[in-house]
């Protein structure tokens, strides 16, 4: 039945491609989380009236975020070739896609983090100050903790965008389902392969959305 409907689909290859997509997505989500939170915190803390008000730092960070968000992802991959080569020692395969994925997604997530932090009630921050809290305590125990549901749903959105990016990264031979669909499906006119890859990607997106929503709901006690 399966072989009749999808004569050109090799299950073993599909498993490998799915694994590569998941590998790229999970690692790049982790990297984006760390870098994005840092960017978001710097944007939030250094803005006028913030805890570390610093116009120069705010301007530089905002410029970095805006520039990297403006560059189309496919061009970003090409631009980052020398950097990737230096960092990973190769410009092919799933690993080589990671720097571009993280640098492409982190500024986007950083903005979402900044928005989430701005939603934290100023009164609560003031209350923590009145208790004699250090800035580090306010960041870790008030700002990040109180904005957690928004940080999680922002990360879900970013992760889904990243799954899309991993497919684009196929152009540098990054591997994964997008790469597979293009080279083994489209180029050979085996459209059943394209179709199966699409279904698998959609399933992965649904999985991320489902998990993200569930976590966000569970930690939201408002």
């Amino acid at each position, binding site marked *: 039945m399966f072989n009749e409907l999808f004569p050109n689909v090799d299950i073993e290859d599909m498993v490998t491609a799915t694994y590569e997509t998941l590998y790229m997505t999970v690692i790049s989500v982790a990297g984006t989380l760390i870098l994005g939170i840092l960017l978001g915190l710097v944007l939030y803390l250094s803005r006028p009236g913030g805890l570390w008000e610093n116009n120069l730092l705010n301007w530089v960070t905002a410029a970095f975020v805006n520039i990297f968000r403006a560059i189309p992802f496919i061009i970003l991959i090409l631009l980052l070739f020398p950097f990737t080569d230096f960092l990973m020692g190769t410009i092919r395969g799933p690993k080589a896609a990671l720097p571009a994925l993280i640098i492409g997604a982190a500024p986007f997530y950083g903005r979402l983090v900044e928005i989430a932090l701005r939603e934290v*009630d100023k*009164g*609560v921050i*003031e*209350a*923590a*100050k*009145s*208790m*004699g*809290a*250090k800035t580090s*305590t306010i960041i870790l*125990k*008030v700002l990040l*903790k*109180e904005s*957690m549901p928004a940080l999680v749903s922002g990360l879900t959105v970013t992760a889904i965008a990243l799954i899309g990016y991993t497919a684009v990264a196929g152009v540098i031979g990054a591997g994964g389902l997008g790469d597979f669909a293009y080279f083994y499906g489209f180029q050979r006119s085996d459209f059943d392969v394209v179709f199966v890859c699409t279904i698998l990607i959609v399933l992965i997106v649904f999985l991320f959305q489902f998990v993200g929503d569930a976590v966000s709901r569970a*930690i939201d*006690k*408002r």
Partner: protein
Amino acid sequence: MISIKDLSKVFHTKDQDVTAVDHLDLNIEAGEIYGVIGYSGAGKSTFIRLLNRLENPTGGSITIDGQEITSLSKNKLRLARQEIGMIFQHFNLLWSRTVRDNIAFPLEIAGVPKEKRQARVMELIELVGLKGRENAYPSQLSGGQKQRVGIARALANNPKVLLCDEATSALDPETTDSILDLLVDINEKLGLTIIMITHEMHVIRKICHRVAVMENGKVVEEGEVLNVFLHPEQAVTKKFVDQVMGDPDQEYSLALIHERYRSGKVLRLHFVGESTNQALISELSRKFKLDLNILHGKITQTQKGAYGTLFVHVEGDHDEIEKAKTYIKQTSVEVEVIPNVQ
């Protein structure tokens, strides 16, 4: 306990400077509940936020318990703040933490070890009457319960001073009263100095010992609550006193009294403090051959005793009435015969 000298705060905006607190001097004694009342924009919120330097003053000094708050370094200020509790109009609880963990937060900040923390939190939950709710999240609590958490949290590190910034303004009248009772209770039990910012005279009347009236960044009137009630000097103070004593019907009912009571005399009794505890009216009717009829009045309770006015119609012999008047004058009640009554 708290001494404030020449305190000023000027906010610079794009097109003008706004003086929120204007060369303010104030002394607050240890263990007293001190009220600061004023309309919005009077500078009272800025004033209380200057006390723990949530706002930095433009000039002047604040000394709390011998420590000059205004000259502290950032680090020392943090430590000093741990000894100054604060509660807020909108409670400002962390919604991501349970009641227990909200109260534990200032203890975490002060570096209290976990076991001591838990014991202290249980004590505080008991003190503010939230037993059984320790695992609830703020969203599951009523406004009054949230403020109780706020109070427990403010008391966690055994502060010497509690700052209340419009602490009851977001609560309904009944809940307000229960929170005020709790504050009086804490003041008496722990000997805590409480500074209370409000725009409700009712709050001042109910729990404060002394009061300052603020207008345009200045204290325009200050003193014992009862004295301020009795002899409000400034127009703004009179307005506030009217909030609780206000009696727009008085003129009208005096006219009615004039018409109806053509015989005997109408006395105006002014109760000031303690004396209200004595059963003055029933004493008069027992000691003198008089018929007494209460016509109109309002008595209200303050921390320093009762305050208010009663209009009483007295029927009887002229001499008896005069004797009764002399008797009343020996008490702390002020008496006055309403003229134009035959």
